[in-house]
């Protein structure tokens, strides 16, 4: 569970059913379990007006659990990038009364939130629940390249190769944590790399 360190570090809650006319869920991997747990608290017929977009991940788990909820629409996607055009289209055509629920890894929650913010949903209006990996999406503050699924501290920028301290400083606009060069004074000073975000 993410602890609050600095003000920009996102804190996630527990999904709960909101009043609304349409309910859009976006989840990856273990995030499916946040939806099934919430389903127990939802009023009868809640999923009749719901759409679930699910990225099962390489192991392909939890698809049956999501199907069992019988949402009005279920879309299984191989990656966030692949569902993005569809998500943008859905949000462009949506009306007030649509509620958004994001569950799973921080990278998934952050990127879905970034898209929803552009569509005009306030981040405080979205339900979020973190499940699964703590892996981070990181922006290198030097070259601006984004590295996905960062699990180590420090981490190597996949674009410019600098060794970066992965900070808790987070940008909702970029959906990424900030990575700052950890050995700018002396590049030969290489601190040990630990598995910090398993």
């Amino acid at each position, binding site marked *: 569970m993410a602890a609050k360190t600095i003000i920009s570090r996102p804190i996630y809650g527990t999904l709960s059913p*909101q*009043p*609304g*006319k*349409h309910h859009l869920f976006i989840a990856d991997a273990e995030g499916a379990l946040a939806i099934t747990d919430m389903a127990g608290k939802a009023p009868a017929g809640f999923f009749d007006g719901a759409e679930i977009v699910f990225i099962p991940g390489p192991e392909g788990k939890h698809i049956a659990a999501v199907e069992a909820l019988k949402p009005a629409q279920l879309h299984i996607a191989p990656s966030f990038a692949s569902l993005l055009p569809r998500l943008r289209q859905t*949000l*462009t055509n*949506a*009306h*007030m*009364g*649509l*509620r958004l629920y994001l569950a799973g890894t921080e990278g998934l929650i952050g990127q879905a939130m970034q898209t929803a913010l552009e*569509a*005009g*949903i*306030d981040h*405080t*209006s979205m339900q979020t629940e973190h499940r699964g990996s703590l892996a981070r999406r990181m922006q290198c503050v030097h070259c601006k390249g984004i590295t996905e699924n960062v699990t180590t501290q420090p981490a190597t920028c996949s674009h410019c190769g600098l060794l970066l301290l992965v900070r808790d400083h987070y940008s909702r606009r970029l959906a990424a944590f900030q990575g700052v060069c950890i050995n700018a004074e002396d590049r030969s000073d290489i601190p040990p790399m630990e598995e910090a975000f398993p």
Partner: protein
Amino acid sequence: MSTGTTKLDVVVSDVVPVNDLVTRFHFRRRDGELLPTFSGGAHVVVEMRDGDRTRLNPYSLMGSPLDTREYTISIRRDDVGRGGSLFMHRQVKPGLEMVISYPVNLFSLDLRAKKHLMLAGGIGITPFVAQTSQLAGAGGNFELHYTCRTASLGTYADVLRERYGNRVRLYHDDREERIDIERLLSSQPLGTHLYVCGPAGMINWVRDRAASLGWPSETVHFEHFAAPQPGAPFDVTLAVSSKTIHVGEQQSLLEAIEAAGVDPPYLCRGGVCGQCETNVISSDGKFIHNDHWLSEEDHRSGCKIMPCVSRFEGKSLVLER
């Protein structure tokens, strides 16, 4: 003491009757300079010096925020109120020197919105006159739904229709025209923000419907200045300043505290901003809460009161003031 605001010395530059109930007042600075800039939805507190009595009432600025040569407010005459509107209607003439507060905005537009949906009831139209000017100047996307009793009491309905055409929809009570709120709220594009200003009943109705139709509270903005209601006189002990004061029938608790020489912070004087929130040390009686600031839980607890609009009936009330 008004929090964070200084006063403006102004002169009444014009007084224009708008209809049977509403009169518009124009203010310019006495030194001829431009007035401070403001944003749509802002209000000023007008000091009304009426003999030995001073009333301080908030009114929304309704001019264009792009023009700060003058401020304009429109006041609906309230024949059974505490007399502030009657004073303005009867005593205030062009040339009169008055003092108003700097503008304060507790009802501002959220400019991140993709669209602004505005619902006005009666004299609640005034902040929207300024907000629509602001948005129209910036190419903003808005829609105004305005409910009034009759066409002749539809203050500025003609002006707004002339300026914005079909973006303004009018509803007349006497023709039994009603806002189809379910349909209106369900057909708005994602990213719309809702603004409502009017009678308390209208605000509560709209907020309630919006919440149940899934509008997040961050997207619902409302403003209702509760004018202080007259009521039975009562006595209050101010524990910090060791004073016992009497609140008259036509006086607000805040005014009585000020008359005793104690200077609590205030901003809106209409139960909205929260500045004058005061802790109750002890009480024996019933609170008459009229504010929109404290939560229902706070109201029930009997531990807090907003002295600008709320009153008390009972044996004793001790405030931390």
